[in-house]
């Protein structure tokens, strides 16, 4: 039995299965769900007294932690929609951090961002060659990309960062920061409102405030990529072709779609997005490259994507949830932990009842 092939074939069916019962989430429904969720948080906050739960700082911290995960998840989504599993996201992210920092400290953060994308895309290209041209098991290839990216960046650091002032074989010199924006009046007003700790209103203010306060421009770009992905994949001919390669490549091929080309494009974009996530980590989150900086975020991104049912919105929600719990945990305090436990308990009860 050829197992190498079997597992490749098998992993594919894990991909999107939302077919017949694709829930039609219209805008009102989505808003209602969001409002419901917020009300729940609000309730938990009032009960537990953990006012940090929906504070501006908490939300903006969560956002910062969620962006790299979300970008990795978005990368995973592009690849999987074209029928390629991308376990190599982690490696592509590592390439993103390294290339982003390497270019970033020399030529400025935006060049770093571009190089980070390019680095990740390079990893994507490798994954594409192995899986698409050589038809190797996607998971094997992803694992190989991860190992190679790790080895290559560590090796390269010895010749690049180690010789720079402020750098070492493990970390890059500092990179200039990307501009941050805060909408002056609005931000303060929302922060004030949040400080009142009113039920729901303050929570809403906190969440909105977190989304408009001290935003890095790259965060804005990352956030925009979610609707852009949705539009590109579901509202353009290009996206239709790309998705058809994931749904039924033989059918696509029989209609003259160059399946190879679209898979290549998808996997390279996937790598580019993961690379952007890496660049974000290096340039925005920390300002330096550091060995082991990604710390499994590529895998978490993949998990977020699966959680989000292979849709950009769901993925963003998943990434947001990861960022939120991380942030809550890091910002600490006993109340936060209690609030989190309470939240989990309520959700469990809801899940059980349902």
């Amino acid at each position, binding site marked *: 039995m050829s197992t190498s092939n079997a*597992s490749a074939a098998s992993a594919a069916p894990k991909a999107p299965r939302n077919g017949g019962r694709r829930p039609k989430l219209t805008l009102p429904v989505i808003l209602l769900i969001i409002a419901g969720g917020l009300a729940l948080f609000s309730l938990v906050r009032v009960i537990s007294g953990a006012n940090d739960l929906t504070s501006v700082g908490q939300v903006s911290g969560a956002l910062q932690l969620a962006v790299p995960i979300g970008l990795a998840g978005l990368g995973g989504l592009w690849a999987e929609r074209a029928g390629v599993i991308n376990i190599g996201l982690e490696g592509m992210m590592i390439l993103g951090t390294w290339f982003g920092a390497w270019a970033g400290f020399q030529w400025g953060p935006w060049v770093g961002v571009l190089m980070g994308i390019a680095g990740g895309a390079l990893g994507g290209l490798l994954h594409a060659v192995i899986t698409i041209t*050589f038809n190797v*098991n996607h998971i094997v290839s992803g694992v*190989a990309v991860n190992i*190679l990216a*790790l080895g290559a960046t560590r090796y390269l650091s010895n010749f690049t960062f180690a010789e720079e002032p402020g750098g070492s074989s493990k970390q890059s010199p500092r990179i200039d920061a990307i501009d941050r924006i805060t909408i002056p009046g609005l931000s303060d007003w929302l922060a004030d409102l949040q400080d009142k700790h009113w039920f729901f209103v303050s929570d809403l203010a906190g969440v909105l405030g977190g989304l408009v306060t001290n935003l890095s421009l790259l965060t804005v770009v990352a956030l925009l990529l979610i609707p852009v992905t949705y539009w590109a994949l579901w509202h353009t001919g290009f996206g239709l072709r790309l998705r058809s390669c994931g749904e039924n490549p033989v059918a696509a091929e029989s209609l003259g779609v160059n399946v190879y080309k679209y898979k290549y494009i998808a996997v390279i974009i996937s790598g580019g997005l993961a690379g952007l996530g890496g660049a974000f980590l290096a340039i925005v989150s920390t300002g330096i490259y550091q060995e082991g900086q990604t710390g499994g975020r590529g895998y978490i991104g993949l*998990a977020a994507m699966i959680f989000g049912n292979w849709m950009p919105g769901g993925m963003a929600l998943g990434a947001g949830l990861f960022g939120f719990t991380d942030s809550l945990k890091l910002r600490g305090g006993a109340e936060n932990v209690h609030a989190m436990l309470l939240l989990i308990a309520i959700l469990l009860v809801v899940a059980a009842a349902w």
Partner: protein
Amino acid sequence: MRKFDKDRLLLGLAGPVLALAVAFVLTSVVLLASDRDPIEPFRLMFDAASFSDVQVLIINQTGTYYLAALAVAVGFRMNLFNIGVDGQYRLAAMVAALIGAAVELPGPLHIALIVIVAMLVGAFWAGIAGILKTTRGVSEVVSTIMLNAIATSLIAWLILPSNFGEQPPGSNDLTTGDIPESGWFPALEVTGGEIYGFTFVAFALGFVYWFVLNRTRFGFDLRATGASSTAAQASGVDAKKMVLTAMLISGAVAGLAGMPTLLGDTHTYSFNFPVGVGFTGITIALLGRNSPVGIFFAALLVSFLDKTSADLDQHGYEKEIATIMQGLIVIAVVVSYELVRQYGLRRQQRKVGEELAAGHALKTAKEAAK
């Protein structure tokens, strides 16, 4: 048909050998490009491998990796992707060490208890993912990633001196306490060190794995599920039970992966207990194509790279060379597998066509009667 198979064997061997050569050449290119001697590091590594103490290290590491890879392979054989082997392995080793340190039993019993606890804990932790998958349809990829993180927190909590762990005086480490000598697994004394006794158990398990997979009904069901879950289900395999069983077995084997180190060397679980074994196990299982022999050689290869590269930095070479080489080897080997497989398939199809056209099909009853 016999000739067919001999050719296949030759093809099967040619692939990996060629791939290794390609990986070495590519690594040399990387070295050259970074202005390093392209041969010297390999010479150093092979030199290192000629020392008996390094050989012992390699063998011992192979045992651990072998178990971790078997755990992954059990899942892979039916298309379950158990990323959680690392967490299962750590939690199992930790709890087994706790229990082992807490009791005092005659030798074999003590060891058996520790081993069984490790298997149960590993199986339990993997079983959670299995249950989530069968009852809630949660992807095991997601749940095992999460379970790895939870295992980390759980261990950190359990090992606090205020809970079950202890802090040896003057140390900044936390441990589970030492397992008394009755719980140590006898080792094989050789020049260069001790080969952990459990390493042999690991290799024996490879045979069990082969036997279960190829000679039992359960193994057939497992492989059938991996080859085609729909066909397996129609053939009478209970898919859910299968998923759960496979996860439990995978977890139990993952639990064993910590035993060579725990019973043979550290006799306690501490912050220093090796991590990442489960992830290396994934690489090895894939490299060894989930076959017990393949996994053995893959584990040996990876251990070889690990151990012989350890001293490279003392000779002025970056250790990362070994990591790069490992990545290149994985790529080269799997690409070659695939090329060989496709070539073999084409050949087979052509042969089938040719033989049928030439009328060499197995004689049918009717024809035989003529």
